[in-house]
């Protein structure tokens, strides 16, 4: 065979591909036939949607909700932004005012806005709200059927703008079901669902919109969804803040983290929901147009959730507060933040995330109490709190990161957090000794003489940042003489967490509103009445299965007061003190979400300097950014 033949063969094989070879511009991952300057491209973190043509968000497992459906097309009574909000964190959306309860919280009255319309021209009224409740209660197997059936005795719509919920039992937080944190009970269109035989099996395709956008097109294979601004956008609740900037929104599945970075470097993805710290550092270095929540280090937006070491307090050894505190004192959180986030974390010593309003409501006011907080180990008294840990992390990073690291103490506190617990292996040993443990060589033995084994469950590559944190903690425990082991759940965390099949795991049991000081969002389910027997599934949160008479008392007191009652903050601080004394979870840091925003085509994104909305793409309240975005040129 001659070389000529070889070349001819190669050319013949490649020839059919020539018509398809594109110019660089045509190869970009941009929706076809839509002007780029009118289009905002956002990541749908749910990835590829299996049943892409489902838009009935009220049915279980039906389609995607982060594809723009809850951000662009749906609406409900109220929103609370984890940040400051456009007009305060609380936003009356479909409701005209805050909820009004009767004295014993058995009735909630809602006044609705008028002049709002569904995208098919039908006016939104109280009948839609009533139908949202009645249809789901009647169906029995829809997403919010159980919560509505458990709470609502009846719902009345005496006129087009008034809704009265009669509750089965006192509930001062019932409105939170209709209040968006990242999602909520969305209001459904009565005039559409009235014609449907089985609402649980209705695909709601094409969705009728109450938001500012309507569905333009979508991929039957679930890779992308495009939404178009309604011509009558003024008749949506968002309309009162002005005309949204982008005419089109594309929610896409850009693929794994490396491809998200490439897509943004190619300006094919305006908002990345979340990437690993390394991806964020790459974007910050290579693309001057990329902006994150913080302008420099640590970049990420602190979610109102709190990654922590969550103990199974039904475990025989971990029932003991001294043992839990001993394990906390063996941790060097600086090394943990370096392992997890390369230092780009906002630490928290207390069981409230350092997000939104919480630093002002809890972290800063409690500094004095934390500094005085003392542990009696039986042999000595120690003050474990070190108020300088946040600053130490900033100082540690400064040599390598240079002027990206802030020097203003207030900015450092805001970015890296305040203090944490000093590593104190000696005090930890004293606590373990008081708990009946003994040390043989470098190995801690339990009171019955066996090696003290603690398996720390992590999610694996599904959540690499937390997995790296867990690995570092296990290493530190091992160095201190604990037989600690990493237990990689790899997809089974939800099942095992519910079943209590773990010694400890890295995750969160604390989730807050962020923009509101009320802690009942997660705390109510911590009441001892809901804690499952060992081996039985645990209801939502309180994965630590922890009971304490004082937490019951705090919860019962919160249930009796109004959502905005200042006494709620006092009770919240009592909760923080109790959690610090008991340490059923070891708080670590905010869950920093590295949302990267490309300013090539759009400007006006929410940032730490202008925190008017949560930028994270799958949250319902990220819709507020649409009205502040303007074309970049």
């Amino acid at each position, binding site marked *: *065979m001659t*070389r000529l033949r070889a070349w001819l063969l190669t050319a013949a*094989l490649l020839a059919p*591909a020539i*018509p*398809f*070879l594109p110019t*660089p511009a045509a*190869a*970009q*991952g*941009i*929706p076809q036939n839509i002007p780029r300057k009118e289009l905002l491209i956002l990541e749908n973190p749910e990835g*590829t949607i*299996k*049943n892409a043509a*489902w838009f009935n968000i009220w*049915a*279980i*497992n*039906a*389609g995607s*909700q982060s594809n723009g459906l809850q951000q662009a097309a749906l609406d409900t009574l109220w929103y609370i932004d984890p940040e400051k909000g456009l007009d305060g964190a609380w936003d009356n959306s479909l409701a005209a005012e805050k909820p009004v309860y009767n004295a014993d919280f058995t009735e909630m009255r809602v006044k609705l806005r008028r002049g709002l319309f569904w995208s098919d021209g039908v006016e939104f009224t109280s009948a839609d709200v009533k139908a949202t409740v009645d249809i789901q209660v009647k169906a029995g*197997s829809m997403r919010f*059927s*159980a*919560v509505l*059936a*458990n*709470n609502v005795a009846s719902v009345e719509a005496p006129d087009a703008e008034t809704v009265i919920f009669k509750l089965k039992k006192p509930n001062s937080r019932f409105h*939170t*079901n209709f209040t968006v944190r*990242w*999602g*909520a009970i969305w209001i459904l269109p009565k005039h559409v669902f009235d014609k449907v035989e089985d609402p649980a099996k209705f695909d709601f395709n094409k969705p009728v919109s109450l938001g500012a956008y309507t569905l333009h097109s979508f*991929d039957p*294979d679930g*890779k*992308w969804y495009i939404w178009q601004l309604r011509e009558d956008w003024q008749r949506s609740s968002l309309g009162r803040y002005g005309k949204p900037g982008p005419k089109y929104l*594309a929610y896409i*599945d*850009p*693929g*794994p983290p490396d*491809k998200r970075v*490439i897509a943004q*470097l*190619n300006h094919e993805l305006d908002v990345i929901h979340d990437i690993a710290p390394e991806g964020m550092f790459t974007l910050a270095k290579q693309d001057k147009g990329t902006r994150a929540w913080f302008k420099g280090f640590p970049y990420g937006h602190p979610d109102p959730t709190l990654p922590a070491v969550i103990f199974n307090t039904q475990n025989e050894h971990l029932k003991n507060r001294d043992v839990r505190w001993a394990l906390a004192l063996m941790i060097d959180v600086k090394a943990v933040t370096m392992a997890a986030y390369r230092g780009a974390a906002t630490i928290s010593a207390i069981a409230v995330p350092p997000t939104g309003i919480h630093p002002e409501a809890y972290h800063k006011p409690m500094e004095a109490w934390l500094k005085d907080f003392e542990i009696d180990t039986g042999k000595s008294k120690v003050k474990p709190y070190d108020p300088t840990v946040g600053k130490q992390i900033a100082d540690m990073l400064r040599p390598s990161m240079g002027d990206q690291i802030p020097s203003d103490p207030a900015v450092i506190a805001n970015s890296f957090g305040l203090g944490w617990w000093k590593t104190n292996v000696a005090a930890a040993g004293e606590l373990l000794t008081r708990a009946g443990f003994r040390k043989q060589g470098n190995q801690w033995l339990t009171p019955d003489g066996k090696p003290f084994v603690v398996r720390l469950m992590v999610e694996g590559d599904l959540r690499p940042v937390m997995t790296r944190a867990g690995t570092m903690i296990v290493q530190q425990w091992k160095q201190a003489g604990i037989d600690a082991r990493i237990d990689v759940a790899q*997809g*089974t965390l*939800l*099942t*095992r967490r*519910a079943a209590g099949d773990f010694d400890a795991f890295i995750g969160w049991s604390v989730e807050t509103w962020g923009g509101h000081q009320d802690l*009942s969002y*997660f705390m109510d*389910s911590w009441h001892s009445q809901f804690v499952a027997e060992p081996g039985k*599934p645990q*209801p*939502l949160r309180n994965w630590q299965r922890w009971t304490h008479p004082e937490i019951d008392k705090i919860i019962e007191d919160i249930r009796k007061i109004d959502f905005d009652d200042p006494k709620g903050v006092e009770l919240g601080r009592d909760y923080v003190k109790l959690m610090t004394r008991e340490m059923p979870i070891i708080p670590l840091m905010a869950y920093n979400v590295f949302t990267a925003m490309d300013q090539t085509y759009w400007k006006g994104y929410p940032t730490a300097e202008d925190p008017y909305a949560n930028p994270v793409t799958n949250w319902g309240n990220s819709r507020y950014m649409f009205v502040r975005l303007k074309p970049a040129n």
Partner: protein
Amino acid sequence: MSAYPAYLAKRLAQFVMVVFIGVNLAFVITHASPIDPVEQSIAVVTSFGSTAPEAIAAMRSSLQELYGLKGTLAEQYLTFWSRVVRGDFGPSLSAFPTPVSALIGRALPWTAGLLIVSTLITWVLGNLLGGLAGYYQRNRTLKLMGVVAMGVHPIPYYIVALLLLIVFGFLWPVLPITGGSAMNLQQGWNWAFISSVVLHSILPALSLILIGLGSWFLGMRSLVSNIVTEDYVVYAETAGLDSRRVLGSYVMRNALAPQVTGLAMSLGGIFNGAVITEKVFGYPGVGTLLVDAVYAGDYGLVLGVTTVSIIAVSVGVLVIDLLYPLIDPRVELR
């Protein structure tokens, strides 16, 4: 060929047995999974708001009822087989109430299109070049190809895929790096969509071809290297037959039999999807569907995909078994 009917009956019986055992194994393995689809669904639902614990308990019970997970394992097993026989795998649990068959039906054309074309190209090219390399052992170009094949063959697939992504998606961004087609195109028999599908398949296909080519090349070269020393080849050459005729009629035809078996197995395996390829390139095929279903604890979908795959591979083997005695006189009918 009088023994052929008995041979056919025996092979068909084996086929049924293999499918039965395989599908049963798939049922046992999926039901032994530690992932609970009910908890997965509850996690999604409760992420919307502070759902009361009593409501969670009620929802858990309702979901178990809805998903058909309340009966005993034996009842679930019988229901499963009655559905398999009817070709109905029930609803997907993670995409409830969409039927599993609808999800597979939508994903399969993508996988089949990508894998059939890339497998055939790889097979034809690999065998052609491998055969030439085995026969023309002194040709420098073919020798170089052998060295390249030896070098590329052991490279992990995802490294090749990542390199292609970086080169053609970032450094010289001429090819799309994710999805099956461009956004906002009407799916159907129109040029814009078809050309977009072809364009989007170039990188995943190229990555499959680059890695697959080496093994077919090396396998064929080895087979041909052995065959060229056989008496009948030496005799043909000594008799002065044209070397192209010797290569085509005597060497390649005899070397192809095991390669055809390999091809049938590869084509049967298409129903499993190219899991890594589809994940890396975000291709909307069966592989992606299967991985997502495993993570979601979606028994129905996992069983649907694996059952289709088991049947497809078994059919592939059966067809080869039935054809071999007809085309290869060396095969004995036992």
